[in-house]
């Protein structure tokens, strides 16, 4: 591990025009991006958009159909074995051996990475301390709840002190408290210089990332910091207080000039290219006699709005120069 290029100039991941086809289906289509060391890169996209396939390409699990990629400074085409020694991977469903104890799971993964006994013991102690797994050390993995399973899986993935960790939907199916605790842990590890590549569906998690990439139908739409992403949302958003709200959503979605409407805290949030014009119109002549418009407010876009705009292709709402 001492031979690993640790030069700060070397990006953790550098992907150039990645392509992966399965027969006629193109799962990953000309994806290029860089992830610098120490970043927490959030990879967002709907199910089936190619997130997991990108991870498999970068870890050498799947061969590339086109393009090239360097991971921790090594070429995925030729050095995938060396890459695997330097990166960690936690798969979607925290794949652990249910009939082994916490300690046995950890020791198993440690030995796979051929850690010497002294180092293995030190690493297990460190991980137990970091993840607070101590009280569960002799418990079977099957008996752990989702949050603890996920901590153990994370522990197994980072036993060998990887420079880069791929976490494939690390928080799927666990409760919000456990999710927040996991993110606190990721921040702490990130502070130690570990780079994270995290796929997620949760927008609040995307906000915690240092960089976010949106992927749709195998294409990377954008990669930016959350702040700049939100700044790229140039259109303003109106929230309407309207009664009754559910029929209002359906009616508003079909109204001319409205791209979409969603329910946020009991109000209807409107996505439109010219919201000011629309509001003036509505205030002049409210077109829905069965609905009562009570109030309106201008709101700041959040990550969910940005993601929506990118994933549904509402390019009118976005400032392409900002991102």
């Amino acid at each position, binding site marked *: 591990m001492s031979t690993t290029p640790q030069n700060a100039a070397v990006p953790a991941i550098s992907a150039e025009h990645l392509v992966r086809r399965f027969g006629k289906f193109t799962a990953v289509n000309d994806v290029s991006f860089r992830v610098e060391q120490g970043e927490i890169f959030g990879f967002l996209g709907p199910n089936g958009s190619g997130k997991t396939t990108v991870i498999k390409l970068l*870890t050498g*699990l799947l061969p590339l159909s086109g393009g090239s990629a360097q991971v921790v400074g090594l070429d995925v085409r030729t050095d995938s074995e060396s890459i*695997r020694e330097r*990166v960690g991977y936690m*798969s979607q469903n925290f*794949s652990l*051996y249910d009939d082994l104890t916490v300690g046995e799971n950890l020791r198993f*993964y440690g030995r*796979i990475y051929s850690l010497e006994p002294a180092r293995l013991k030190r690493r297990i102690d460190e991980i137990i301390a970091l993840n607070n797994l101590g009280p569960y050390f002799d418990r079977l993995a099957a008996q752990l709840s989702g949050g603890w399973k996920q901590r153990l899986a994370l522990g197994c993935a980072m036993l060998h002190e990887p420079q880069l960790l791929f976490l494939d939907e690390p928080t799927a199916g666990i409760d919000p408290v456990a999710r927040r605790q996991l993110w606190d842990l990721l921040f702490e590890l990130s502070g130690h210089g570990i780079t994270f590549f995290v796929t997620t569906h949760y927008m609040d998690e995307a906000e915690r990332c240092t960089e976010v990439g949106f992927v749709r139908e195998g294409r990377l739409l954008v990669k930016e910091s959350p702040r700049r992403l939100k700044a790229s949302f140039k259109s303003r958003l109106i929230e309407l207080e309207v009664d009754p709200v559910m029929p209002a959503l359906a009616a508003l979605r079909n109204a001319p000039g409205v791209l979409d409407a969603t329910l946020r805290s009991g109000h209807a949030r409107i996505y439109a290219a010219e919201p000011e014009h629309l509001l003036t119109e509505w205030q002049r002549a409210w077109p829905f006699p069965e609905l009562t418009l009570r109030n309106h407010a201008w709101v700041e876009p959040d990550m969910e709005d940005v993601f929506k705009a990118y994933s549904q292709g509402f390019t009118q709402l976005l400032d392409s120069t900002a991102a």
Partner: protein
Amino acid sequence: MNIRSIWNAIASVALKEFLHVWRDKRILALIIILPPFFTLLFGHAFEATELTGVPAVILDRDQTDHSAKLVKQLKKKNTFSWKGTKDTGGDPDLLRLHASAALVIPKDWASTLENGTPAPLKLFLDGTDATSADELEGRLREMLGDFQGQDDVQELTVKPLFEELPPEVFESLKTITPENRAKLKVEFQKLVKPWQTDTHILYNPGLRFIDYVTPGIIGLILQLLTVTLMACTIAREREAGTLAQLIVTPLRRMEIVIGKVLPYLGISLFLIAVTIGVAHFHFSVHFRQPFMLGIICLLFLLCSLGSGLLISAFCHTQTQAIQFAVFYLLPVFPLSGAFAPIERLPDGVRLVSDVFPLTHFCEAFRMASLRNAEFSYFAGDLLFLAIGAVVTCGGAAWILSRTDA
């Protein structure tokens, strides 16, 4: 709950269950192809239960017209496939001759036949399979009886009976009717004793069937356990998702395969020791060449663990793996020669038998332990098992490297 809603509930479960089978194309293929295939295979396997074409050697040390005639007569039936061989004198060595039986026509046999008291023919039988040995001896006696019943031979054998009769009898014979003469002939024939053979049972002189069947029992138990245990190992990890996790580690595929085989190999070796212990202490079966038996068991286990692993690498779920294991093991029971010699199977079916590791295990085990044969007699079987182990384990690793978990 009325009848209709109960029926609807049952029908929806039944439909769902049917869809599980229907959607699993691997299991569906097995279900459609194998029953008719096995019916044909097993049907042909047990179509004829008589032993035919048993390799046998005839040593004619008499070299007379009579002995030549006997040889010709014996060759008429297809129970034995007689072949000539260079006679080196002494008792024939069945192993070296690759024969299950040897018949020696002793020198001066024709002259003793002329005298009316033919010297007994020497029969050497491979007693490894006790039931077959009994059957072969009976068949040979039948053939000798047929030979004895031929008119000219009969005359020779009946002659001494006449010699003992007083002359008055011959006088009275001249006066009896042809009808009575025929009856009398039958009565005389009954007096003629059937020829005895001087039978030597080799390799399993006690003709103990348990000695023959022990390797079959051991092999079958181990085959069953190894294949089913092993078949689940990779499929289980694939279902649990841990395989994907393993594959992103620096572990090589061959390391996974060997790592998976080792503990089961240890367990199986222990189980073999237990079964051998039971056979020895409870059934008093003796085992010769223990070192060689160890090698045979080891290679057999590697080969069957490899078969299980290959099934496991190929299947996506444990359910599939178990189905495939069962369908693989099904023909092994009747066709491997575990309980009955594969010599009884027709040639086409024996080609299938030769594919099973258990067939070669039983052959090699019996060669070494029962016949106390030298290594060269079962080297071929060991080679098959060794190649089988490499091919199946290597195949499993190859399949693993091709699947993107």
